[in-house]
C-alpha cells in the first residue's frame, strides 16, 4: 500500500521553526496559494497536523512546509530527518481568491509569515501594489524575510521586543496604512488567532476588507468530522472545506479561541512528556 512520502531536506530556521521539503509530486502540481496539507509522522499513532504549503516546486515534485514546534506532535515531526518517510494528505482547503485588487496589504505574525508568502507572491503576480508587514515576538522568529522583501513594494518589520525593526505589534503599522488615502483595497492577515482578531478589529472602522486564514483544530480535513467548525457571520462553517480563509470581520473570535484551547491540559502534559523523552534520548546518545 502506498502511503508515505520522503523528506528531501530539513533546515532549522530558528530554535522553534523548521523547514521541510517533502516529495509529493501530485500535491506540488495541484496546490495553489492558501492551501494546506495534513501531515502525520507515522501511520499508527500520529496526530493529524495541518500545515500550510509554504512553497512548491512542480518540476522537482516537492512541497515546502514551515512549522513551529508548539507541542508534542510538531516536536515529533521535527525529529524526522531527510530520507525518512511521512504521510501527507492534500492539497486541502480552498485556494485564496487572487485578483488585482489595487493595493494589497499582507500581514504576517510569527509562523504565519510562512503561509503568507505564497499568497503575497500570488497577489503581486496578479498586479497588486503590495505592502507586507512582518511581525514576531523577537528577531529570531522572523522568518521568510528575504522572500517577502523580494516580492513586496513596501516591507515593514516589527518585533514585540524591538530586537529588529520597529518595536510594535503588527496592528500599529496596519492602522497607519488604513489611515492613508485611499486606504488599502484588501488586507490579508495570517498569524496567531489573537493577532488576526486584533488585525480585524483594526481594519473594521475603516471598512477595509480583511481576509484571515483560520488554524482551527482539525481531524480529517475533508469535511467529515465537524471538528474545525467556526461561527462566521452567525453561520457555522467548516474551516477545512469552507475555508481556511474567511472575512475577518465576520468571525466569532472568542468562540474560535476557546475551541482552540479545548485540549490545552492534555496538550501540555503531552508536550512535557515529549521534552522528557527528548532529553532522555540526548542523554542516551551522549552516553553511547
Amino acid at each position, binding site marked *: 500500500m*502506498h*502511503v508515505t512520502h520522503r523528506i528531501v531536506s530539513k533546515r532549522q530556521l530558528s530554535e522553534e521553526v523548521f523547514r521541510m521539503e517533502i516529495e509529493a509530486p501530485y500535491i506540488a502540481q*495541484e496546490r495553489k496559494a492558501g492551501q494546506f496539507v495534513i501531515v502525520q509522522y507515522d501511520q499508527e499513532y500520529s496526530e493529524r497536523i495541518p500545515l500550510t504549503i509554504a512553497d512548491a516546486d512542480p518540476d522537482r515534485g516537492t512541497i515546502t512546509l514551515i512549522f513551529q514546534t508548539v507541542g508534542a506532535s510538531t516536536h515529533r515531526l521535527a525529529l524526522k530527518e531527510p530520507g525518512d518517510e511521512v504521510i501527507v494528505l492534500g492539497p486541502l482547503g480552498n485556494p485564496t481568491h487572487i485578483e488585482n485588487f489595487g493595493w494589497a496589504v499582507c500581514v504576517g505574525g510569527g509562523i504565519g509569515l510562512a503561509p503568507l508568502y505564497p499568497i503575497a507572491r500570488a497577489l503581486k503576480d496578479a498586479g497588486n501594489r503590495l505592502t507586507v508587514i512582518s511581525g514576531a515576538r523577537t528577531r529570531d522568529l522572523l522568518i521568510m524575510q528575504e522572500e517577502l522583501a523580494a516580492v513586496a513594494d513596501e516591507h515593514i518589520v516589527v518585533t514585540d521586543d524591538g530586537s529588529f525593526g520597529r518595536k510594535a505589534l503588527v496592528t500599529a503599522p496596519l492602522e497607519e496604512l488604513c489611515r492613508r488615502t485611499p486606504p488599502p483595497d484588501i488586507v490579508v492577515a495570517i498569524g496567531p488567532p489573537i493577532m488576526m482578531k486584533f488585525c480585524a478589529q483594526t481594519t473594521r472602522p475603516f471598512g477595509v476588507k480583511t481576509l484571515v486564514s483560520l488554524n482551527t483544530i482539525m481531524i*480529517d480535513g475533508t469535511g467529515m468530522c465537524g*471538528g474545525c467548525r467556526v461561527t462566521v457571520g452567525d453561520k457555522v462553517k467548516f474551516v477545512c472545506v469552507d475555508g481556511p480563509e474567511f472575512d475577518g470581520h465576520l468571525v466569532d473570535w472568542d468562540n474560535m479561541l476557546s475551541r482552540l484551547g479545548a485540549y490545552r491540559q492534555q496538550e501540555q502534559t503531552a508536550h512535557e512528556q515529549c521534552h522528557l523523552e527528548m532529553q532522555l534520548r540526548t542523554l542516551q546518545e551522549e552516553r553511547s
Partner: protein
Amino acid sequence: MTHRTDMNMDPASLELAKWRSTPLTPRTRLQIPAQDMPCQDPAVRRANMQEVALGYTPAQAMLEAERCLQCKNAPCIAGCPVRVDIPAFIGKIKEGDFLEAARIIKRTNLLPSICGRVCPQEKQCQEPCTVGKALGGVEKAVQIGRLERFVADYERAQGAVDIPRVPASTGKRVAIVGAGPAGLTCAADVRREGHEVTIFEAFHKVGGVMVYGIPEFRLPKALVAAEAQVLETMGVSFELSFLVGRTRPLLSLLQKDGFDAVFIGTGAGLPKFMDIPGENLVGVFSANEYLTRANLMKAYERGKAGTPIYPSRRVAVLGGGNVAMDAARMALRLGAEEVRVLYRRTRDEMPARAEEVEHAMEEGIIFDFLKSPTRVLGDDTGRVAALEVLSYELGEPDESGRRRPVPIRGSETIIPFDTVIVAIGNESNPLISRTTPELKVDRHGHILVDERQKTSIERVYAGGDIVLGSATVILAMGEGRRAAAAINEILQ
C-alpha cells in the same frame, strides 16, 4: 477468533446430541431455543475495547442451524440485500461443513465476517424468517447473522480463506475512490475479471466507516485489515492519503492517468448539528469527530496516541441510531461516569440494531426517551456545563403510522453535562461534487445514478452512502457490486 472450546467439552454439543437423538421434524425444530451468543460480562467489557460478542462455538452453530426449516420459498433470501443463499449455507453448517458454508455465502457477500457482525438482521434477513413468524417474534428467528459470522470466523481461523483467482490482465484500468465497503466490493469484483484496479483513499487506513466510525468493541479492526489484505493479494493497488478532487481532479484520472472507468464510493460527510444555541461550545462534538478520534486515531491508547480525547464525566448523546449507540458506549469505555442517550421518540422507533441497544443498556447507558435538547449552556470559559431539555409525549399517528412526538409546553429542565455528542446523521460529502461541476447531484448533494449506478459522466459510476445517504454496510456493498457488473460490461 479461535474457538476455545473443544467440541466435546462444549455443553451445546450435549444439547445437540439430545435434539438429534430422534429425527428432527419441523415441529421439534421449532422447539429448539434460539442460541444466545456468548458475550463479555457487561461489568468487565464497559472498561475495555475488546469485542463484546464472542461468537458461537461449532456445536452452538450446528444447533442453531438445526432450527432452520429449509423453507422451499426461503423468504429470508428476499430480506437480504445481496441475496445470500441462506438455506444452502445453513444446510452446510448442519452437516458440519463450515468451509463450504463460507464458500456459499461468499458467492454473493464478500465480507461475511463483517456483515455477520453489523447487518441490522432483524430488519433484513431475519425479519421474514418463517421460524420467527411461527414463534411470534423476530428475536426468535433463525440467527442468520450469528451463523454467518461463525462460518467466516471459522474459515479465517483455519487459514482457509480462499483468494479469488484473477485471470491474466486485460490491460484495462479502473480507479476506485474511497475504501469503504462500497469501494472495496467494487474493487474485488472488477479485479476478478482481470482488470487492473487502484483504490484511492483519503485516510491513511483502509475501511471507511468500518475503521473510523464503528468501534473496535463491535468490529475488530484486524478483520477489516484482513479483508484489505485479500484485495492486495489479488493484486489491487492502494494509494492511501490521496484525496480525489484535491490531490488529483476526478476527471484527470480518466483523461490524463489512463483509467478506463471510475467508481466513486466516498461515503457520507458533513455531520448534521441540532441548530440550537450553544452548539459551538467546547465539549460539543459530532459523533464522527468523537469516534474518529477514538477509533482511527486510537485516542483510547493514552500515552501512545498523539490525538487527545476530551476528558468527560457526564456525557449526553443526542440521537437513536447505531452511531449514537457507538458514541455512548465509547464514551463509557473512555472513562465517563454517566452517559445518557437523549432520544425524541421511544425505544420502538430507535433505528439502531436491537442487539446494540440491548448491549448498551446492559453496560449501564441511561436512556432518556421522549426528550430533546433546546439549548447548550456553557460556563464562563466557553465549555459545556448543561443542557436545557424539553420533554415530549406521543400524539396522533402521522402518515407513517408512527405516533408523532409532541413537545410538552413548559417542560424544560436543565441537566448538568460536560460533554455533548451529536449523532443525528450526516449530509453528503461535498468535495468531489464541488470540484467536479459536471457531476450531477440532488439537492442533498447525493450523486445521481441510473439503475446500473452510472453517474451523469460517461465511465463514472457511484454507490454507497454518497448515493443513498446514510445506509448500511451491506447496502453499500450491494451498490459496489452492481457498479462493478456495469463496469465489467463496458470494459469487455
